[in-house]
């Protein structure tokens, strides 16, 4: 008999509801405010310098108290005449008298803008000072006093490099979770097969592997597209990406193995043994490797924990439902494939 979960409907409906919510919410929630560029990008001390800043999703005119700072080596410099020319652009001037402090080595500046509606937004290392820092000039620091540090609206964080692609978090990351979970389902049914010799359990294990390969392939494809935009290469030497690739190789070998054995009972038993052997080593591998090597992925360099990294609270509202929704959707796929195979077996038995 088929296990009960393959026929229950509530979790399948739940996956649809969650994924519709993620699809609509994840694509319609705007990105938060962020600075795009500053022009010119360099300045010379001892002259008057005028700058324009371009931004997105900001409220320079409607938000009150627009302030601009330059920050370098932990010190803030004040600018003059900060004036919004539109909601997303503003102008300011850096007067001659206020220049860099003498003791700094680094001659790049972060540009920081604050207003009451958008909170504090920054463009890192955006401004470069030409020439050497004159020793005689003292730092003319200004006191930073802002009313509101955080963006008040409902939005996903605006991150340099990521931009709109941050929404891929709801599609790429859950593929990986789904792949692992479906593999664990196949492990459970492989063990069940070995202890009971029930042909049905072999079918579930094999179909779970097929679906997990689909998750792995989708995860790699979405990851490659994302990496191409953000890290500049579709295949950066990243341990997590390589981990997924190894998983796909192992389970392609599993399919080859199943194809190589004619006898049904033998195929079921031998492939169950291989599945258990492979998955134990594989799980050890993917849990060990990110802890000993650096990863480009968040939570890298010794700590793959998810909660630790700065997943924004607005992202979480969609990320967790996305993970649950995708996992359930792929389990649904497993259950459909299992039921088709089960019917085929019954038909074969009757003939």
């Amino acid at each position, binding site marked *: 008999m088929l296990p009960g979960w393959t026929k229950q409907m509530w979790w399948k409906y739940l996956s649809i509801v969650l994924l519709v919510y993620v699809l609509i919410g994840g694509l319609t929630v705007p990105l938060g405010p962020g600075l795009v560029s500053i022009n010119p990008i360099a300045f010379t001390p001892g002259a008057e310098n005028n700058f324009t800043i371009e931004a997105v999703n900001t409220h320079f005119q409607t938000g009150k108290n627009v302030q601009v700072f330059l920050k370098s080596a932990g010190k803030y410099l004040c600018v003059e005449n900060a004036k919004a020319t539109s909601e997303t652009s503003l102008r300011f001037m850096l007067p001659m008298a206020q220049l860099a402090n003498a003791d700094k080595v680094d001659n790049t500046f972060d540009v920081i803008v604050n207003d009451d509606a958008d909170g504090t937004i920054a463009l890192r290392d955006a401004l470069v000072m030409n020439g050497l820092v004159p020793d005689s000039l003292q730092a003319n620091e200004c006191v930073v006093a802002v009313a509101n540090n955080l963006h008040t609206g409902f939005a996903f964080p605006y991150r340099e490099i990521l931009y709109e692609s941050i929404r891929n978090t709801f599609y790429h990351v859950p593929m990986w979770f789904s792949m692992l979970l479906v593999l664990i389902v196949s492990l459970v049914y492989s063990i069940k097969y070995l202890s009971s010799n029930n042909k049905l359990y072999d079918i579930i294990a094999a179909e779970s592997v097929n679906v997990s390969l689909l998750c792995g392939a989708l995860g790699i494809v979405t990851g490659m597209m994302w990496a191409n935009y953000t890290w500049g290469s579709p295949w950066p030497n990243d341990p997590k990406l390589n981990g997924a690739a190894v998983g796909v190789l192992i389970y392609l070998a599993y399919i080859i193995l199943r194809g190589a054995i004619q006898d049904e009972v033998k195929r079921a038993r031998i492939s169950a043994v291989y599945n258990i052997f492979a998955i*134990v080593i594989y799980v050890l591998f993917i849990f060990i490797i990110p802890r000993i090597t650096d990863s480009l992925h968040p939570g890298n360099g010794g700590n793959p924990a998810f909660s630790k990294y700065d997943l924004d609270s607005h992202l979480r509202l969609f990320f967790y439902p996305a993970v649950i929704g995708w996992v359930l959707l792929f389990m649904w796929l497993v259950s459909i494939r299992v039921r088709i195979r089960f019917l085929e077996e019954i038909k074969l038995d009757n003939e």
Partner: protein
Amino acid sequence: MQNNNPSFLSQVFALFQKDILIERRNKYVLGGLFLFSSSTVMMIYFSLLYNGDSLQNLPASTWGILFWMVVLFSSVNAVSNSFFREKEENMMYFHFLFSPYVYITAKLIYNVIFTLLLSVAASIIFMVVIPTHIHSFVVFTEVMALGSISYAVLFTTMSAIALKAKSNNTLVAVLGFPILIPMLIFITKVTSAALGDITMQELVTKNLLLLIALDIVQIILAIVLFPYIWRE
């Protein structure tokens, strides 16, 4: 076996002796394996020699990786050979005579020792042809032992699977190589450290411990799962 109820160890030893005996009768197989290793080393040597100064500037890590690749291909052949030379009637006979645990333990011990000898031989040939400085001999010995155990245990299990699938060496490689990748990372890292790659030094103990852990897990899995492969 005159004793009606021989102990586990004596049964293992009997099977082990049987494998040694077969090896001694077919010396050309053994010779063939060592020739295989030597020719692979020579191929690497000549490829390096006639490519600018790649031989002189060979980094320690690359030396380690090339070395383990040579051992990899030799040990796939050696280990799978120890299974595929068994005739089906013989297997049936062993099946009635021994418990699966005896059989797999004997095979594991035999293959570990054999792979260890292979890797020692390969390292000597490698050292002679492509000289390198061993920074820490103790670490090098440890990683040789642990690496050979990894190779031998993995390929023993995969050969047993491939044998039951009535397939050949190719299946052993296809099944084994992806699973070997995790082990290979640790093995080559520690080897680089043993050869004096300074950037790797700090992690030696950690990597060795991980390798030991993976080896133990592999051995346990091989012994626990083998009865299911063995059963006809």
